[in-house]
C-alpha cells in the first residue's frame, strides 16, 4: 500500500459503483431508465446547490447561507408575481437580491476578513429573517397564474430527460467551464491552495473571493427557481431544514476537501449520485425513516473512515484553518 494512494474521489466511486450494482441486482425495478431518471431528478436541485458550494469550498471557504439564497430570492419572485408584477420584473429583482446577498457575504469575508463559516452562518439567518419578516405573506409562497409558462424550468422533459436533470447538466457544464477554462477559475484554485502566495503573485484575491460568493448565491437562486417550478410553490421554510448539511455532504463526500484548492465538478456529480442512489433505493425498499438515517450515517462513516485510513493526515496535508 505504500506507493498506492487512493483518493477520496476513488473511494466514493467504488462505494457508489458497489451500491449501484447491489441495488441493480437485488432491487426489482431499480435498474430501469425511468427509475434512474427519477433518481437523478430527485437529487438535481441538491446537485446544483453542490456546484455552488463547490466553487466556494475550492476557494477555501464555505457558504452556510446558501439555503437562504435558494429560498429568499425565488420566494420573492413568486410573491411579486402573486401581487401582480410582471414575471421579468420579478425575476430581475430576485436575481438582484441574490447578487446583493453574495456581495454582502463576499465583502464580509474578503474585506472585513470574517471567517467564512461565521460570516455566512450569520448572514444566512439574516437573509432568511429578512424574507420571513418583510417579503413573504406566508412561508409557502404559492404558484400563481402569472407564473404560468415558467414551470418548464422544473417540469416536463427535454428528449425524455426531465428538466431538473437538464438544468443540473447545464449548471455542471457552466461551472466546469468556469473552473477549468477561465482565468477566474484558475485564480479560485490558486486562492484555495495558498491565499498568501496567490496575493504575492498578483492575483486580485479580494475581488475573486467576492465573486465566488456572488456566483454561489446566483447558482443557489437558480436552484431555488428549479425547485419552485418543480413543486409549484416555494416552501421558504426549507431554510430551517437540514438541507445545508446534505449540500456539504455532497461536496465533501465527492472528494472536494474542505481545505480548498482540490476537486471539481466531477466530484460534485459523484457525491450527488451516491446520495441519490441511497435515497432512491431506500424509498423503493420502503425503509422506515429512522432506518434510512441509520443507513445513511453508516455509509458516510465508512467513506470517511476509509479516507482517514488510506490517506492519514500528516504535517503536510493538515493545514491550519481546516474545518
Amino acid at each position: 500500500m505504500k506507493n498506492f494512494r487512493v483518493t477520496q474521489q476513488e473511494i466514493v466511486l467504488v462505494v457508489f459503483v458497489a451500491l449501484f450494482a447491489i441495488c441493480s441486482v437485488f432491487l426489482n425495478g431499480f435498474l430501469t431508465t425511468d427509475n434512474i431518471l427519477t433518481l437523478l431528478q430527485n437529487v438535481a436541485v441538491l446537485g446544483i446547490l453542490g456546484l455552488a458550494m463547490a466553487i466556494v469550498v475550492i476557494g477555501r471557504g464555505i457558504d452556510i447561507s446558501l439555503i437562504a439564497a435558494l429560498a429568499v430570492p425565488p420566494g420573492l419572485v413568486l410573491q411579486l408575481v402573486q401581487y401582480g408584477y410582471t414575471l421579468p420584473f420579478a425575476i430581475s429583482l430576485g436575481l438582484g437580491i441574490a447578487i446583493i446577498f453574495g456581495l454582502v457575504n463576499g465583502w464580509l469575508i474578503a474585506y472585513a476578513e470574517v471567517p467564512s463559516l461565521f460570516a455566512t452562518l450569520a448572514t444566512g439567518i439574516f437573509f432568511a429573517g429578512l424574507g420571513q419578516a418583510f417579503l413573504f405573506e406566508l412561508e409557502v409562497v404559492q404558484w400563481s397564474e402569472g407564473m404560468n409558462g415558467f414551470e418548464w424550468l422544473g417540469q416536463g422533459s427535454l428528449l425524455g430527460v426531465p428538466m431538473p436533470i437538464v438544468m443540473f447538466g447545464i449548471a455542471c457544464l457552466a461551472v466546469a467551464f468556469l473552473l477549468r477554462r477561465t482565468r477566474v477559475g484558475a485564480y479560485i484554485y490558486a486562492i484555495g491552495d495558498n491565499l498568501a502566495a496567490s496575493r504575492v503573485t498578483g492575483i486580485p484575491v479580494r475581488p475573486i473571493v467576492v465573486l465566488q460568493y456572488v456566483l454561489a448565491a446566483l447558482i443557489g437562486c437558480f436552484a431555488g427557481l428549479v425547485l419552485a417550478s418543480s413543486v409549484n410553490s416555494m416552501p421558504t421554510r426549507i431554510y430551517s431544514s437540514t438541507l445545508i448539511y446534505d449540500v456539504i455532504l455532497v461536496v465533501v463526500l465527492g472528494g472536494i476537501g474542505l481545505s480548498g484548492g482540490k476537486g471539481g465538478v466531477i466530484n460534485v456529480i459523484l457525491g450527488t449520485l451516491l446520495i441519490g442512489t441511497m435515497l432512491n433505493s431506500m424509498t423503493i425498499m420502503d425503509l422506515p425513516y429512522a432506518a434510512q438515517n441509520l443507513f445513511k450515517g453508516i455509509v458516510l462513516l465508512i467513506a470517511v473512515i476509509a479516507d482517514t485510513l488510506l490517506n492519514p493526515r500528516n504535517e503536510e496535508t493538515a493545514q491550519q484553518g481546516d474545518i
Partner: protein
Amino acid sequence: MLISKFIRYGLVAVGMTAVASTAALADKGLDEPFQAAFRAAMKDKTVAYVPVAMGFDLGEGWWAGLKNELEPLGIKMELRDPNWNTSAGAQAVTSLISQHPDVMVIHNPDVQTYARLLKRAEEAGIFVIQINMGSAYQSTGFVGANWIEIGEKEAEAVVAHCKGKSNKIAIVQGALSAAASAYTLKGVENVLAKHPEIQVVSSQAADWDAAKAKAITQTVLKQHPDLCGIVGFWDGMDIGTAAAVKEAGLTDQVFVATSGGGERKGACDQVKSGAFDLNLSYNVPNQAAQMAGMIKWLLSSDLKAGSVKGMAYTTLIPITKENADLAMTCWNLSDMKK
C-alpha cells in the same frame, strides 16, 4: 247577552291596556339583565396566543379570527411566535405564566413538551385552550381536528376509489415526531384493518416538505405505475405529491386525499385544478370562532381554570370538485386580515 257584553267590554279594556303598555315600553328602554356584567367581564382581559409559528395559513388564520372576534370587546391580544422552535415556545409559555394573562391559546408542537407547563398555567388560574394539536394534559378547552377521523375518512375515500382497481396505495406521512401525523396514521390503519385486499406499497415520512413528498411519490409511481390512491397528511406538503402524480400523467387514475386548513389557494384551488381529489378541511375561521366563543363564555362565567374540561372537535368539511367553487367552502387569508 249580559255575559257577552261583559266579555266584549273586557276585551276592549284589555286591548287598551296593551296599547298603553306598549307605549310605555317604547317610551323607556328595558335593561337586558346580563350584558353589562358581560361587557365588564371582557374589558381589559388579556388573551395570549402561542402557535408553533406564524407565517402559514393555520397560525395566521387563527390569530386573525381571534382578533376580529375579541378585540372589539376590549380584550387585549398578545402574540408569541416561536417560529417552529419548540424550546422557544416552551420559554414563551413559561414567561406567559408569570405575566398571567386571563386565557392562553396554545398550539402544541407535540404531545409532551408543553404538557406540564399547561397544567401549571391552569393551577395559576389561567384558562388554557388548546388548538388543533392537543398535549397529554387535558386543559379547560380543546378546539381542533380529530386526526384519527381524518385518517379514517381519507383512507375510506381512497379505498372506495380503488375498488376494482389495483388496490395498491401509498401513504405520505408528515414528520414522525408530530402526533398529528401519528394519529392520522392510526386512523388510516383502522380502515386498512377492515380491508385486507388493500396493499400499502409505500408508507414514508416526507417531513411536511413538498419537495420530499414529490421525490418519494415519483419513485413510488415509477415502481407501481398502477397505483390507485395516495393518502397524504397535509395539503401544504401534498402539493408536491400531486405534482408528481401530474407529471406522471396519472391524475385520473391516482386518487389523492389530503387534509388542511381550507385556505383557498392551498385547498379549493388545488381541488379545482385536479391536484387533490379530496381535501378534508378543518376550516380555520370556524375554529377561531369556536375558540372565541369558548373564551367569551369562560370569561363571563364564574368558573375557575381547570375546574371544567371539555373538547370541541372540529366538524370536517370534505372539499371535492362538487363544492370547491362555493364561496363558503374555503376562506381567504387576505380577507380575514382586513
